[in-house]
C-alpha cells in the first residue's frame, strides 16, 4: 500500500517537475503562472486590462485571418448550395415565365375577341337591319371553295340566302343552314354572283367571285369609267339581298381587260359576322 502511494507520488512529482529533453518549463511552473494570470485577470488590475486588450487585438486579427480557410470552405459550400437552389429557382421561374406568356397571349386574344364582340354589338345596335351575331368556327381555305361555317343556324332564325356582314360590309351569303350552324359563301368564291351598283353613276353590274381575293365586276356598261367610279353597293335586284349594303370599291388596275373589285370585308380577316335577318322597323336604328 505504502509502495503504491510512493509510486504515485514519484510519478506525479516527476510529471510536475521534470522537464523533458526539449521542455523549457516544468508543468508546475506553468500551472503556477496560469493561476497567477487568472487571479490577476479576475482582480481586473488596470495594467492587466491594458495588456489583455492589446493581446485581444492581436489575437483577434490573427484569428480572423486563420479562420478564413474554414470560413472560405463554409462560404464555398453555401455558394454551391445557393447555386443549386438558384438553378432550381431559375428553372421554376422559366416555367412561370412560360405560363405567364401563355396567359398574356390568352389575355391578348380575349381582349381582341372582346373588342370585336363589342364592335359587333355596337353594329347590332346601329344597323338598319335586324342582325344576329355569329362566330366563325371553321374556315376552310381552298382555291375551289371559299366558304366558312358559323356557330348559328336555324335556331337563331337564319335562312338560306341571307346576307352576311362583317363590320357592316357585305361578306357573303348563307348557302347552307343547319340547326346549330350555317355555311357562308364568301363573295370571292367562284360560285358567288351578286347584283351590285357602282357609284356615283349608278352603273349596274354583277360581282362574280374568281376564286381569288378580288372578285370581278361583270356586265358593266360599255362607257364605264373605272377612274371615276369608287364604291360598290348591293343593288337588291335579285330580291334576296337588301339594297345599299356597301360591298367594296373598284380596284384601279385592269387585269386581262377585267375590272376587279376590292372588298371592304377582307375574306381572310373575318372572324365575327352579322347575319341580316331582316329590315329593322326601328327609326332610331336608321
Amino acid at each position: 500500500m505504502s509502495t503504491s502511494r510512493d509510486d504515485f507520488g514519484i510519478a506525479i512529482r516527476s510529471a510536475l517537475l521534470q522537464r523533458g529533453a526539449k521542455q523549457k518549463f516544468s508543468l508546475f511552473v506553468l500551472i503556477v503562472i496560469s493561476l497567477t494570470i487568472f487571479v490577476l485577470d479576475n482582480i481586473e488590475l488596470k495594467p492587466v486590462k491594458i495588456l489583455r486588450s492589446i493581446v485581444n487585438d492581436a489575437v483577434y486579427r490573427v484569428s480572423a485571418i486563420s479562420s478564413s480557410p474554414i470560413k472560405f470552405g463554409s462560404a464555398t459550400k453555401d455558394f454551391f448550395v445557393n447555386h443549386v437552389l438558384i438553378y432550381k429557382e431559375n428553372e421554376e421561374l422559366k416555367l412561370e415565365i412560360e405560363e405567364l406568356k401563355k396567359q398574356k397571349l390568352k389575355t391578348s386574344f380575349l381582349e381582341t375577341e372582346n373588342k370585336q364582340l363589342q364592335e359587333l354589338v355596337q353594329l347590332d345596335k346601329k344597323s338598319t337591319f335586324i342582325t344576329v351575331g355569329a362566330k366563325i368556327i371553321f374556315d376552310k381555305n381552298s382555291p375551289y371553295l371559299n366558304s366558312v361555317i358559323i356557330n348559328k343556324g336555324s335556331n337563331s332564325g337564319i335562312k338560306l340566302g341571307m346576307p352576311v356582314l362583317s363590320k357592316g360590309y357585305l361578306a357573303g351569303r348563307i348557302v347552307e343552314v343547319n340547326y346549330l350552324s350555317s355555311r357562308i359563301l364568301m363573295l370571292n368564291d367562284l360560285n358567288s354572283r351578286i347584283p351590285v351598283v357602282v357609284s356615283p353613276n349608278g352603273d349596274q353590274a354583277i360581282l362574280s367571285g374568281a376564286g381569288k381575293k378580288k372578285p370581278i365586276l361583270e356586265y358593266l356598261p360599255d362607257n364605264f369609267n373605272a377612274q371615276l367610279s369608287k364604291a360598290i353597293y348591293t343593288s337588291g335586284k335579285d330580291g334576296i339581298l337588301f339594297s345599299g349594303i356597301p360591298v367594296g370599291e373598284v380596284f384601279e388596275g385592269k387585269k386581262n381587260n377585267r375590272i376587279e373589285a376590292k372588298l371592304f370585308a377582307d375574306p381572310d380577316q373575318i372572324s365575327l359576322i352579322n347575319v341580316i335577318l331582316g329590315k329593322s322597323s326601328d327609326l332610331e336604328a336608321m
Partner: protein
Amino acid sequence: MLSLESLQIWRQCKMAINVKTLREGFLRVLPLFLLIYICISEFHTQFYYWNIFSFNFQFILIYYWILRDPSILGYGFVFLCGAINDVVLSLPLGTSSLSYLFVALVAAYVRNATVRSSLFTDWFTFVIAIFIGNFITYFLLKRFTLMKPEYVTMFYNSLFTFILYPAFWGVFELYRRIINLKTYD
C-alpha cells in the same frame, strides 16, 4: 577536375541533408501548428452541430502528444495555446491554460506510471484527463466569473471528445510512425 567533382557531390549531399532536415522539422512542428491553429480559429464554434455535437480537439492533441512524444509539444506552447484560446473565447486569462496543463499533467503521469501503453490504456486514462480538464474549466468559470457553463453541454463535449479519441489516436499514431521513419531514415 577531380576536386571540382567532389565539391559538387559534397554540395549536393549538403543540399539533400538540408532538405531532409527541413522536411523532418516541418513534420515535427505540424502538431504544434495544428494546436495553435485550432485555438486561434474558433474551432469550437466551427464544429458545433445539432446543439449537442462538439468536441475538444485540443484535449485530444495535447493528451496524445504529451503521452507519446513530449518533444513535439512543449508545455510552454500548451500554456500559450490555452492563453490564446481564452482570448478567442473571451474567457478569463489562464482558464484554458490551467485546463490544458492539467490534461498534460495526467498524460505525463500516465507516461511515467505505465511501461507499455496501448490504445485502451490511453483511451481510459483519457477519461480522467477530460474530467479534470473540464472540471477545472467549469469550476473556474462558475466560481470566479458571471458565466453560466451548462452541465449538459460540457457532458456532451466530454462524451464526444472521449468517443472520437480512438479515431484521432489512429491518425496520430500513423503520423508519429512517419516522423520516426523519417528521423531514423
